[in-house]
């Protein structure tokens, strides 16, 4: 049989909505805690190199469901095994083929090729990148040795073990020249500067008519080919990856650096919960114990606690938060510390006034006359009476901590090692994302802040009739 208070709490729709939202938030946090690396903020989120192969400022992929013509999606093709190997004299040719089916109206945003760890024994492998188009024409894009040997180095030579070799085909001068040559073979002349401006990928993926560009995408299967010329049979290539940059990406799009916003938004859940719950529970513990002490003990101690609480209660929080995080290095613990240090006073004042009432009740007087110790009276007789109220206050104060952290982050004073929703919005505002209407960069993070705040407001609305029975029959 559920306890009475739980039954009352559950009888309101706001409580149910709050519990469902809370469950969702907790699930998302658990997912992040179990699947994200602990140094996600430093090593992944704030590391531009990690996001190089992502489209920049791309809206979410599901916008394609709402539009008639599908925008190019992000295509990644990886191959771990060569499709064929030839030997000619002392040279060995290892060929990796990456088929890419391209069926969109627009050109891709970029083209890049990455090569994983390489091991070689004599001279560095030479890579040749080419693409075979659906119309049968083949364009050789790029040729270069993948690495070099340092003087005094002994084989085997290992390269790209930490970060793969990344060839940004869209920006390579050699690729642009190759494409220019390819065009002139088809009778189209275009200057190098113009080609840099429109990007070589928009020619590679374009149908070419008689002596002219058509302006239309050539749809079909492209085969991107990476040929490695090895000098020893023991040389090893681990994998080859081709990226055809889309114009839409993932569940939530990307930002200016190409960061997958869905990853950052998910990471915001545990951060918000951490700040909200740690702050509100510490504030509540300190505030209520000082309030009980102040109300029950009375005298000088009461006077002292109440004076301090009164002073703290009159301090504007946000300016001081800004001041402290500005002077010290912004860190999540500093923010929590300040929120707690300045936040306990309101609760202390209220708890004290309730304790003053409870103290004069008969059961407390009975306990006193039995010679019960003060500590026992406070913890066993007074605390249980006001516990529901304190618990409701704790839930009610949670959103304010989350909002405070978000506000600080928005002002650029967030903890850089823990990306939060406020920080995502800070960057979108600072880089002018609002003025050019990048809605997927602005609406979701704010909506999540509101939803998380609302979760706790709804829960405390549901708690209210439990705590103050006067309101019970009104709803």
């Amino acid at each position: 049989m559920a306890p009475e208070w739980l039954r009352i709490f559950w009888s309101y729709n706001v409580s149910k909505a709050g519990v469902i939202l809370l469950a969702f938030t907790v699930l998302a946090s658990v997912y992040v805690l179990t699947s994200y690396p602990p140094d996600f903020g430093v090593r992944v989120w704030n590391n531009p190199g990690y996001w190089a192969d992502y489209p920049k400022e791309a809206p979410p992929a599901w916008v394609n469901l709402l539009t008639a013509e599908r925008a190019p999606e992000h295509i990644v093709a990886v191959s771990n095994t060569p499709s064929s190997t030839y030997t000619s004299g002392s040279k060995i040719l290892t060929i990796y083929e990456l088929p890419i089916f391209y069926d969109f109206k627009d050109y891709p945003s970029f083209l890049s090729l990455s090569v994983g760890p390489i091991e070689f024994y004599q001279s560095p492998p030479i890579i040749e990148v080419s693409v075979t188009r659906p119309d049968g024409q083949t364009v050789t894009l790029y040729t270069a040795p993948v690495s070099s040997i340092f003087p005094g180095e002994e084989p085997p030579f290992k390269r790209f073990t930490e970060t793969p070799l990344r060839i940004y085909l869209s920006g390579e001068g050699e690729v642009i020249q190759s494409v220019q040559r390819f065009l002139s073979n088809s009778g189209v002349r275009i200057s190098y500067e113009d080609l840099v401006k429109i990007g070589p990928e928009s020619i590679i993926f374009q149908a070419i008519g008689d002596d002219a560009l058509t302006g239309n995408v050539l749809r079909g299967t492209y085969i991107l080919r990476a040929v490695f010329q090895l000098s020893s049979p023991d040389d090893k290539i681990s994998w080859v990856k081709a990226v055809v940059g889309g114009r839409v990406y993932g569940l939530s799009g990307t930002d200016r650096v190409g960061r997958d916003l869905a990853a950052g938004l998910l990471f915001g859940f545990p951060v918000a919960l951490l700040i909200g719950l740690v702050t509100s529970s510490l504030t509540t513990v300190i505030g209520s114990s000082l309030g009980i002490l102040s109300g029950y003990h009375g005298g000088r101690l009461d006077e002292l606690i109440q004076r301090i609480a009164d002073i703290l209660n009159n301090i504007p929080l946000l300016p001081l938060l800004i001041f402290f995080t500005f002077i010290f290095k912004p860190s999540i613990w500093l923010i929590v510390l300040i929120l707690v240090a300045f936040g306990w006073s309101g609760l202390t004042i209220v708890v004290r006034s309730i304790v003053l009432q409870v103290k004069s009740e008969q059961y407390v007087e009975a306990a006193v006359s039995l010679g019960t110790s003060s500590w026992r009276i406070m913890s066993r007789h007074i605390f249980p009476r006001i516990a529901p109220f304190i618990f409701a206050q704790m839930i009610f104060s949670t959103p304010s901590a989350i909002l405070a952290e978000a506000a600080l982050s928005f002002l650029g004073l967030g903890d850089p090692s823990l990306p939060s929703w406020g920080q995502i919005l800070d960057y979108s505002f600072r880089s002018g994302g609002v003025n050019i209407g990048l809605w997927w960069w602005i609406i979701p993070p704010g909506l999540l802040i509101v939803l998380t705040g609302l979760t706790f407001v709804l829960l405390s609305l549901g708690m209210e009739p439990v705590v103050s029975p006067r309101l019970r029959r009104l709803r």
Partner: protein
Amino acid sequence: MSLGRVLAIRAVSLAVVLFGVLLMVVLVLGATGVSDRILSAYVNDQLRVIRQDLAQRIRDPGELESALEQYRSELAASYGLDRPWYQRLPQMILNVLTLDLGYSRTITSFTGSSRIADIIAERLPNSIILVTTAVIISALIGMALGVRAAVRAGSRYDRILSLLSSISFALPSWWTGLLFILIFSFYLGLFPFGGLYSAPPPTGTLERLTDILWHATLPVATLVTVIVGGWAYISRTIVINTAKEDFVNVARAKGLPENLIMRRYIIRPSAPPIVTNIVFAISGSIGGAILTETVFNFPGMGRLYYEAITSFDEGLVIALTYLYTLIYIASRFILEILYVILDPRVRL
């Protein structure tokens, strides 16, 4: 206790708060070495000017260096850099109390002065107008909605209002601002993206006024959206609680007409606690205004705060932290007076 005495006690305790905040700010600045850094920056700035000046007259490099060194030690002494930070404390506190806030390194006023007091004097009125307009509008709307909900407590209207006010409570002002810009400026093109004047500003007085109103609409609307929910909910709760008082039952038992009971026995006694809540409204909106101004590039103190943070202008950040505390406390004091006048019971 007399009215004067009550107010005097409040004034003293608020003054203690103000002084406490100031002391804390100055102590943190001194102990972390930030204060030394600001002062040396001033000294270096002035030395740069002096060096250019001296280089015209003194040709010998060695002589120039020694002359500069002398200037440096004189300047350092005049700023108190030759003494440890705790000995400078009294002077620093005195400076701030007399609103001698120093100079900004990066930001100047619209008239070109880099005195912090000048910069702030220009921006302060804008902020005050923004916040008061928003608080007045939200108070009027919020109270009307809240009292209406209290009269029909438990109705569908009441429930919807409760939900809407909790959403309003959870809305961060700055995100609401961003959303408004996205909708009303970017997609609909109805309002400007920010600022207070068009460029170039219109010439006629009337055109100028409408231009300012046009620019201020979104910031005010943002603040109202965020504050109004709290107002509605608090007014509702207070009126419901008053309606349960014994004197209301007595009035009913006497057979007084219901709307008279409402006006004289419920709404009138609810007024003081509602007014107290202006305190919280103002405190909430001061924080909210910092961010709202930032979002709308509104030339008030909040935007200045943001600019000071992003350009690492320590002097300005400190001055603004102090001034925000001062404004907050002053507005609280004014409201205490209002409260005492409205509720005679406080004087007993």
